């Protein structure tokens, strides 16, 4: 489950994929909303260049997209076995991994290398003892709905021309103080709406995901955008957000771990599918190299980690390694700040005969009431430290 895929990483695998892949809309605009109970401040960037080759990103519906992607691998000679559960890894003695055991009768498959690409729950890498269970702080739970609407209505409501699309990220009131964001993505004839918050927050705040998504859809700013739509599907999925500090070992004798299974998500930028695609590609390059010498030992496969470190994957994950502890320790970003920004905007825009200088003073004093100067300075400094 996911929303956007990125041109850069997919084109490195399937050049000019936009000519054949089942895509929804090229994303030409991104909006970020800061919401209070009833108001919003919106930040947006739109660039028509994102709507022409080589594009920047597209919304996709993964059920359709994944089918196409698998067929691309099959065309290149991959042997695809659908509807089959991998239950465990097979080891030679207690040592190297030499295959997997599937749920089919006589379902043992042997290979010089196994790539664990089994997503966030990755029972495979746990069975291979690469890591223990993920902690609830290191993963977000997202719920989402697919809501059908006529194409023209989507274009009108979201101010889009033709088949172009946008994404909206939402911070503030809708997560009730939990660390997380809401999102709205436009597809061709559906919109994807939902929110994701750190799993430990759902537990500690005692909030149920199905309640909160209803609340979000009924927020006075969100509701008009969905009116008349028909719910088609309700989904739930985890997002590994532990970042750089939570990345498990990435290789062992006969095994490589890629994508979500390896915690490769840049949560701040809603990136995960691109890291999954790129890590998959680098794993493949490593394996092709290893085939030349017939050596699939951990030492040989460690090249995969090196390639990742040279790429944007590890560089980005490393850059943002302190962002999650920061967000968890600075919940005011999800509560007080959206309120401050909205109050300030309201004050500036309202024409009521109050001189602007007085308004300015009012905004500043209202801000300090919510967060004192020391708090603001601390926030600015720790934000700079976490994101620099």
């Amino acid at each position: 489950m996911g929303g956007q895929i990125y041109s850069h990483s997919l084109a490195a695998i399937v050049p000019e994929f936009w000519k054949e892949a089942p895509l929804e809309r090229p994303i030409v605009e991104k909006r970020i909303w800061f919401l209070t109970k009833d108001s919003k401040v919106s930040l947006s960037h739109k660039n028509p260049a994102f709507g022409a080759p080589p594009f920047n990103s597209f919304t996709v519906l993964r059920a359709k997209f994944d089918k196409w992607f698998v067929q691309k691998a099959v065309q290149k000679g991959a042997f695809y076995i659908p509807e089959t559960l991998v239950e465990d890894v097979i080891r030679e003695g207690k040592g190297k991994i030499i295959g997997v055991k599937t749920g089919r009768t006589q379902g043992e498959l042997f290979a010089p290398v196994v790539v664990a690409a089994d997503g966030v729950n990755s029972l495979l890498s746990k069975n291979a003892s690469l890591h223990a269970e993920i902690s609830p702080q290191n993963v977000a739970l997202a719920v989402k709905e697919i809501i059908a609407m006529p194409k023209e209505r989507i274009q009108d409501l979201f101010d889009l021309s033709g088949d172009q699309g946008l994404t909206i990220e939402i911070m503030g009131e809708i997560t009730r103080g939990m660390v997380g964001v809401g999102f709205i993505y436009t597809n061709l004839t559906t919109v994807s709406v939902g929110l994701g918050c750190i799993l430990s927050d759902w537990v500690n705040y005692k909030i149920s995901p199905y309640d909160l998504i209803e609340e979000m859809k009924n927020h006075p700013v969100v509701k008009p955008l969905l009116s008349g739509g028909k719910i088609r599907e309700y989904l739930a999925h985890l997002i590994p957000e532990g970042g750089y500090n939570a990345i498990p070992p990435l290789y062992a004798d006969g095994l490589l771990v890629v994508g979500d299974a390896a915690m490769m998500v840049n949560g701040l930028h809603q990136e995960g599918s691109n890291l999954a695609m790129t890590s998959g590609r680098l794993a493949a390059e490593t394996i092709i190299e290893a085939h030349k010498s017939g050596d699939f030992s951990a030492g040989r496969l460690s090249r995969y980690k090196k390639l990742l470190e040279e790429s944007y994957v590890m560089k980005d994950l490393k850059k943002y390694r302190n962002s999650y502890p920061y967000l968890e320790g600075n919940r005011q970003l999800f509560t007080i700040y959206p309120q401050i920004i909205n109050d300030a905007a309201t004050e500036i825009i309202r024409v009521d005969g109050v001189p602007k200088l007085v308004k300015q003073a009012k905004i500043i004093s209202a801000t300090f009431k919510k967060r004192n100067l020391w708090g603001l300075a601390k926030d600015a400094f720790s934000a700079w430290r976490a994101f620099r």
Partner: protein
Amino acid sequence: MNLEDKLFLDRYVVDEIPHLRIINLDKCAICKKQQCLYTCPAQCYKLEEGRVVVSYEGCLECGTCRIICDEYKNIEWKYPRGGFGICYKYG
């Protein structure tokens, strides 16, 4: 729309073998938070006559329950067998 109606929109191929199991009911009885009851996005965990019961049929296979039951590690969690379980039409 309530949760039950939403889950009704989802497509499942229900396996006759459950893929979720509470390992030891006594532990649920002493579990203070009983967080499975309110965090599961499909409300698969419910109280029946004061006891926690799980119904696997509506499971969205997200993995939440397995991870949040971290104090007692009381949930045996697998994916359904190949060909069974939730089958998203859109994704």
